[in-house]
């Protein structure tokens, strides 16, 4: 039995199905991200786990207990809010103590546990400061210490890093993961930032339009997306409508934009399909090896790499090229694209699309 079970979880607001029969499980000690664009239902899901929203139907089970009849304040979950929701009129120590005071912990034990929590987030020296006198990163640590000090069975993180600037966010990703491991607490994080979800999670739950799209490890979700949405939402991807002509155990044959392509074995029936290929898997080559040729339309220099937009018979390709210190193809140049057949992903055609 998994530690956290969401079973057919549904939340409707009038006609809108914010969360639509979502089912998934989280193992003890695992770090799972709910990832999706805004309005995909991930925050509503978190609110239902926390107890701030009541599911329209479906079941939430934590460590074998059904949470339905347990109010938010008795669930004993640690929650880090997007805005941190620190008590601005209390010092850091008072903020962290609050949850323990509610649990009637006092005296020496209170002090020891608060000190330990503050030590874990490296804020021992700032215990008597007020949150207003702290930076965004420090406030986030306070919020984390406040959530962890009650030793929750489950830690919920609601877009915990979205209010930090880019550099600090990367630092905090590592820091947050370290703290989560140290505390050994099962964690569910909500985020719209795919790189954050990939960097921090054991598994990623990709959601769109209230529905679950795919649950997999970050590597698998990136490498073997099961739908067009997942392939484009996680990282950059070149997606084109295609037609699956035939497939065997060793590989498949497809056509797209009048060009015949070979791909890996497909689990679909021949017919309309969609192909996806990552920009970093495409190489520029000579005219004889090229699968498709095109003209460079845009060129952007990003430091470590170049991004090229290339117009071809199949459509516009985005190609990432590692900066090797040489001059890169310029706008207007004709180039030839090549990739390994196994780097091609064959996905079900988008609904309504026929080729």
């Amino acid at each position: 039995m998994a530690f956290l079970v969401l079973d057919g979880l549904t939340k409707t607001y009038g006609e809108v199905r914010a969360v639509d029969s979502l089912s998934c499980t989280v193992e003890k000690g695992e770090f799972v991200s709910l990832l999706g664009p805004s309005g995909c239902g991930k925050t509503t899901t978190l609110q239902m786990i926390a107890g701030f929203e009541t599911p329209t139907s479906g079941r939430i089970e934590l460590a074998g207990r059904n949470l339905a009849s347990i109010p938010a304040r008795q669930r004993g979950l640690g929650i880090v809010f997007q805005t941190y929701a620190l008590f601005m009129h209390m010092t850091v120590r008072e903020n962290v103590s609050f949850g323990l005071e509610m649990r009637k912990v006092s005296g020496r034990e209170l002090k020891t546990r608060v000190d330990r929590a503050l030590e874990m987030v490296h804020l021992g020296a700032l215990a008597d400061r007020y949150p207003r006198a702290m930076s965004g990163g420090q406030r986030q640590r306070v919020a984390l210490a406040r959530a962890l000090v009650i030793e929750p069975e489950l830690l919920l993180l609601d877009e915990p890093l979205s209010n930090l600037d880019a550099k600090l966010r990367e630092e905090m990703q590592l820091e947050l993961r370290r703290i989560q491991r140290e505390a050994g607490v099962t964690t569910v994080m909500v985020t719209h930032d795919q790189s954050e979800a990939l960097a921090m999670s054991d598994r990623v739950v990709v959601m769109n339009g209230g529905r679950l799209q795919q649950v997999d490890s970050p590597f698998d979700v990136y490498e073997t997306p099961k739908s067009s949405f997942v392939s484009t939402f996680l990282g950059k991807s070149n997606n084109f409508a295609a037609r699956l002509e035939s497939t065997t155990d060793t590989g498949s044959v497809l056509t797209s934009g009048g060009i015949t392509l070979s791909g890996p074995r497909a689990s679909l029936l021949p017919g309309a399909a969609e192909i996806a290929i990552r920009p970093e898997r495409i190489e520029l080559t000579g005219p004889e090896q090229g699968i498709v040729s095109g003209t460079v339309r845009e060129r952007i220099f990003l430091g470590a790499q170049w991004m090229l937009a290339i117009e071809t018979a199949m459509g516009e390709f985005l190609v990432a090229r590692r900066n090797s210190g040489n001059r890169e193809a310029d706008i207007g140049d004709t180039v030839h694209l090549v990739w390994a057949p196994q780097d091609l992903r064959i996905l079900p055609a988008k609904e309504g699309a026929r080729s």
Partner: protein
Amino acid sequence: MSARPWLMSAPALILFGVLLLVPLGMTFVLSFNAFDFYEGIIPTTGLANYADVLGDSYYWEIFGRTFGIALATTAICALIGVPQAYILYRLSPVWRSVVVLIVIGPLLISVVVRTLGWAILLGNRGVINTALKDWGLIERPIKMMYTEGGIVLALVHVFVPFMVLAVWAALQRKDPSTEAAAESLGASPFTVFRRIVLPQTVPGILSGSLIVFSMAASSFATPAILGGRRVKVVATTVYDEFMNTLNWPLGAAIAVTLLVAVMIIMITWNRLVERRYGEALQ
């Protein structure tokens, strides 16, 4: 270029200067003049009026009563206004606009009409006393007109909206997740209100109480109608000096004394609250 801001704000500055600073300055000057029943105002300069005001227990009593009424009004307004603002804050948007209208309702009625309404309710043969007598709960009417209590009641009625709006503004500035955070940490609804919401409304209570106190201390129409000649406050005393005794310099001295006293009280109160909560609320 540097003259432009001044030029553009000139209309407002002129209005402000003519309508506020000039009369205030003239009152200030007037308060140093002397007065004689046969010769009227004598343009001398002296502190005789202030000596009269500060040296006479009659005026001390009036000032004491005025600030007592203002203090009671402020305290009751806070007691009523804070929960009211919290309810307002928690209501759904539709209900909120209805309730806001009800809250500011008293402000839409002329002060004289509103106060006369209270007079009808509070009089010895007023609605309340008649009803209580008819039900056999009392034999003699309870004296409510011409008392400090009656004045406080009517002032609270009209000043509560200022407290509600000030506290409501403070509530809207706070992070709405703080209540959810406290709840998730195991706090009961009452604890959430007492330990999380209430402290965050302190800036609102502060500004609300400054508004209510200064307005209550200088209110005229309500104490004039409900207090009459028997319950004199500073504002009605000033009025009497100007209009009945015609001793304008003395009236001006009382008015200036009130202004200074109110300012001292407000600044002290502000300092006290800031010292207590300053670091947390900056």
